[in-house]
């Protein structure tokens, strides 16, 4: 079983997408395992469905969307800190703490 707030978009996927925000510290079910979220999971953000090794492809919609740059445990957030594009690097800007994070 998996928490109904998490969407599995394709059976081949190794990530799940949050359909609504889930607060930090909450313990949720991911593929029958209990996982406590280290940080808030925002709407539309991803967590690992299974353990993912360095260099392994990330699958969403059944298609590869990049590769892991470090080992990712099941239930851990999957984003720009631990995956990278296989085409062009992702560009972000550092935000001041005062800028709202919606």
């Amino acid at each position, binding site marked *: 079983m998996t928490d109904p707030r998490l969407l599995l978009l394709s059976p081949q996927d190794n990530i799940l997408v949050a359909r*609504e925000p889930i607060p930090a510290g909450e313990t949720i079910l991911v593929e029958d395992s209990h996982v406590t979220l280290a940080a808030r999971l925002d709407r539309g953000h991803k967590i690992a469905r299974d353990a993912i090794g360095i260099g392994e492809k990330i699958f969403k*919609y059944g298609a590869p969307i*990049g590769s892991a740059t470090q080992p990712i445990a099941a239930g851990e957030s999957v984003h720009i800190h631990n995956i*990278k594009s296989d*085409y*062009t690097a992702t560009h972000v*800007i550092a935000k001041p703490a005062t800028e709202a*994070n919606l």
Partner: protein
Amino acid sequence: MSTAMRGYPRADGRKGIRNVVAVAYLVECAHHVSREIVASARDGDVHLIGFPGCYPNAYAQQMMEKLCTHPNIGAVLLLSLGCESFNKFSLADIVEKSGRPVHTLTIQNDGGSLKTIKAGQAWVQEQLAVLRDAPTVPMAVEELIIGTVCGGSDGTSGLTGNPAVGRAFDTLVSAGATCVFEETGELIGCEEIMASRAITPELGNELRASVAKAAAYYATLGYGSFAPGNADGGLSTIEEKSMGAYAKSGSSPISGIVKPGTVPPRGGLYLMDVVPDGEVRYGFPNISDTAEIVELIASGSHMTLFVTGRGSVVGSAIAPVIKVCANPDTYRRMEDDMDVDAGRILEGAASLDEVGAEIFELIQSVAAGAQTKSEALGHREFILTYKSFEPAGPACLPS
């Protein structure tokens, strides 16, 4: 709601869903004078468009020709400084041959800023008086050309808004309409599945090649078509953004590839290849979402479906923009800017098919004259910059 659509008949057989007076500057030096003319006619459908460059560019010349003869355009005022490279004579000739009133003011010959502004304002008022009584004729769904873009995307765009537009596109294509999706830089990683939908194997190869061209172009420039806000919204890579963007195309067969300014020859689903040909020059292929909307309009789009997750607010000159909001939080925050609340899908309050049907209905009522949110707010964004294209190969438009 089923409103009878009526269009403004044009000499080339196409029909417009609006009857706009375009005021077009042909170099940045004529921008202010043009803006003053448009500002005096806020109550009418008078839209500012133009090209800022002083050096000649075949793409910009063709774009202006296509935009000034778009079915939504009823009359055109051209503003020249007088010494720029843009070929105003050829443009005026093409507009005149399209059966539209056209007038050129040259600031250096017409007495400078103030006198040109006054002359332009008077001409625009004359045209508005004539256009007010312009006849309309019945218009069918199959006569519509509908474009789609996404901008300010986030992790919800590919779950709700983009696939809902894909459903609306499927309905439109099966009704015989023409649909155009674009931005090959945001289809990176989708080339194989897209090629499998081509109506001929040769077109499939062209689809693959268009994405490979985009990937190489962006790699040279050092940035993908990916903004920091995309990452804030949960998207991690260009491939992830692409897979979401690709869903806008729906599931119809792909009938061809067009370049900006080429009007698709018949109904069906088309990819617009917006990435320039040849060596990398003039910078990023599309410096903002508006550049893509303008290119869709140049290829005949009567209106554009714009999917946003983070919350874009843009509209467009010439053709209405329908804003489909993918994220329910953004919709609540920015409801005044959004036409469709596709985020309901995430909350279990609507299905993809229901929102797709809502978009299809809305397209028909906007074509029948209903204003979109961005139109009512006065959004008339426009941008046109330098690019260069080679003609598309014969495999791009199979007969």
